[in-house]
């Protein structure tokens, strides 16, 4: 029975896509017979669209992300980012379609993980944006938040965090730890996919040595391989441990487990 329902959905999906994008129904049906039909949106090149069709698919993807975000907002009139998957999807909807510049954003959360405010803190060129820690600090203190989720896009399409991505995360974790504000995640967006540092266990521990307010240029060029992404784990000294004891994750009730990292 499930397959028949799936067929009903697939046939409408194909009909809509044909009308909007102009890709032939037969081509889509042929692809769907042996593959996951939704690949057409995620990896449009597999159906060899022309330039115009490809552009339309990108716009449609952006619209779908925005539609999902609106639905989320309408549901409760406030967004609760209580897990990396929700945060990932939220930032995909804000940064997913941006290919011409790198943009750095932060969502400032209250103790229940509700978004108090989401701000764009830096916008740069296609391969680089400069992040000023003092701007992030000012924004966080202005809204009296309890935790922060950082996010930025890689216009180049790579989902791997760069060395600078790691550095800015470590700096901000260290700056906010004494203030009892947790940097719970850093999400990287490429196309309509996301990478969550928290999900991969790569949020660094706070370190007094990392406290610096110098600007950090982000770039999706030099990436850090997964296996070397231990950040300052293993290099903790006495000072680090003292700082660690000041690093609280104070979140309300059920949500606490979801963000445990």
């Amino acid at each position, binding site marked *: 029975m499930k397959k028949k329902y799936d067929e*009903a*959905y697939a046939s*409408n999906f194909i009909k809509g*896509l044909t*009308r909007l994008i102009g890709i032939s129904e037969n081509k889509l049906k042929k692809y769907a017979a042996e593959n996951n039909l*939704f690949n057409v949106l995620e990896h449009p090149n597999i159906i060899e669209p022309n330039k115009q069709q490809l552009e339309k698919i990108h716009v*449609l993807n952006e619209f779908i992300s925005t*539609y999902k975000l*609106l639905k989320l907002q309408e549901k409760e*009139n406030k967004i609760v980012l209580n897990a990396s998957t929700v945060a990932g999807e939220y930032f995909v909807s804000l940064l997913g379609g941006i290919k011409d510049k790198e943009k750095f954003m932060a969502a400032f959360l209250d103790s229940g993980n509700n978004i108090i405010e989401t701000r764009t803190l830096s916008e740069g060129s296609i391969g680089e944006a400069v992040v000023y820690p003092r701007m992030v600090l000012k924004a966080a203190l202005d809204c009296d938040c309890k935790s922060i989720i950082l996010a930025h896009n890689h216009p180049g399409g790579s989902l791997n965090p760069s060395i600078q991505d790691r550095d800015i995360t470590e700096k901000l974790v260290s700056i906010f730890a004494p203030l009892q504000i947790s940097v719970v995640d850093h999400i990287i967006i490429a196309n309509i996919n996301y990478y969550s540092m928290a999900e991969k266990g790569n949020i660094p521990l706070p370190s007094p040595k990392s406290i610096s307010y110098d600007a950090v240029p982000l770039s999706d060029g030099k990436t850090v391989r997964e296996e070397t992404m231990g950040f300052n784990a293993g290099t903790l000294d006495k000072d680090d441990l003292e700082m660690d004891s000041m690093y609280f994750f104070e979140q309300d009730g059920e949500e606490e487990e979801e963000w445990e990292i």
Partner: protein
Amino acid sequence: MLQDITIKQKDYERASQLLGRLFKVDSDITEQISRCIQYNGAEAFFKNLESFDFSADVFEKLDAVRLVLFGMGEEVMPELVANEIRTQKIDSTEGGAK
């Protein structure tokens, strides 16, 4: 809370601008879409598509977006139509027997 409203307002505008780009229509159509989505909400906008005063061409394109969303499992069809589509498909795959 005010910020939530501001973010939402921006997202409504972004959604309608993206549809405008996709359909290649004038800004007055984009504004009309924006007003309708804002007033009804994103999901209800598509569910009630037939009740708005869009030209046949714009309706056709919005309906195509609705079909894509429906295909992705979104509840955007009026309930009766959604049930009809599912039933028709099941009937046809079972040789049309009722």
